[in-house]
């Protein structure tokens, strides 16, 4: 099993997919919608990109398939749900703090901190 630092940095799609799964299990389409919300439509995942990422994330143990079907009535039974693993949670945290470090470094250099801009 890889350790979180080995997986960093994450690509933007992987990072946002993990964030989308941070609070609940979602199916592919739900992940895409949540990623669009997180990024103000800045990142709109296509099916190929999304499932390609999920495939690699499953292989790396960042996410797993869920047997539960949270909203059964609404749903088509062909849908699969994905859930973040403990490793996934650690990894996305590590990535977030890495990004935070990068952002504060950028702010310090560019004089953007403290609303001075």
């Amino acid at each position: 099993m890889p350790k979180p630092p080995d997986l960093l940095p994450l690509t933007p799609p992987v990072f946002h997919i993990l964030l989308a799964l941070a609070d609940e299990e979602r199916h592919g389409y739900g992940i895409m919608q949540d990623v669009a919300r997180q990024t103000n439509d800045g990142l709109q995942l296509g099916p190929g990109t999304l499932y390609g990422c999920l495939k690699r994330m499953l292989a790396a143990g960042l996410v797993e398939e869920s047997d539960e079907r949270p909203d059964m009535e609404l749903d088509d039974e062909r849908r699969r749900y994905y859930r973040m693993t403990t490793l996934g949670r650690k990894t996305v945290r590590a990535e977030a703090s890495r990004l935070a470090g990068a952002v504060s470094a950028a702010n310090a250099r560019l004089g953007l901190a403290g609303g001075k801009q």
Partner: protein
Amino acid sequence: MIGLLCRIYSVMLFAYPREFRLRYGVEMQQFFQDRCREHVRAQAGSGAWFRFVLRNIADWVVSTMRERQARKLVQEWAVTLLMFLFVTTTLVQAYVVPTGSMEGNILVGDHMLVDKVGFENGGSNWSSYVLPHRDVKRGDIVAFRYPEDVRQTFVKRVIGLPGDRIRLENKHVVRNGQKLDEPYARFSSSGIDDYRDNFPTAPDFSTLGGGRKMFASNVQGGEVIVPPDTLFVLGDNRDNSLDSRYWGFVPSNYLVGKPLVIYWSFDAPTSDYVEWNLRHVEDVALHFFTKTRWDRTLKIPASQPAQ
């Protein structure tokens, strides 16, 4: 509208590797369908649909390449490439006819595959055990390296085998004392040029090296005698062919093979086939359908015996 898009998308899924498609194909289709429905619900305009389609095409291109990944891609192409290299180096060779010396049977711009193993002599080569082969016969059309410049490949018809006595009498070939009736021969002028049409009675020592050698050592009693392990070849377009009359015999190890099939025939002048030029590329691109001689496609240049 949605139905059509979804059907197109389900076909596009076949570009993904099999395992990927089997595992995620259904979900991806569902995803795509949901996305289409969302656009309908939002009463998207044609601009939004257009962007949606473009974005999905981009996603498809990028992700199929990614999923097919270097390893798979290389594996698949490596096999194809190896087969191609094997076939083109040992079995066949592609060749374009640049001149009209075989006019009547083979035209300028005929693109053909030459069978490189058809004339291998029995036993000397592994391929002779695997592939059909036979000896060169009189009347065969053959491709060979031009003895005066081995970088060029010529296509002509075999008229004389080793030991044959050849001469021309007013354009007609006399072989071993017998006048040939050659259904394949074409004559483009009625005038008689003694060197060309009453060969070899009017030797001209300004001819090419091989020709001079032939006149010096292979002419006897007004006839050329074909030496061992060589061939005497003539173009079917007799009055306009640079052939054995001018540069002598083809050593049998200069043989490349026999034309197998014409896979494409494109009507363009000799100069386009002698030297590569951009105008020719443009010509092909613009006039592919009109200047291709469709009736010649897959034609087999047959050997034809003289009577």
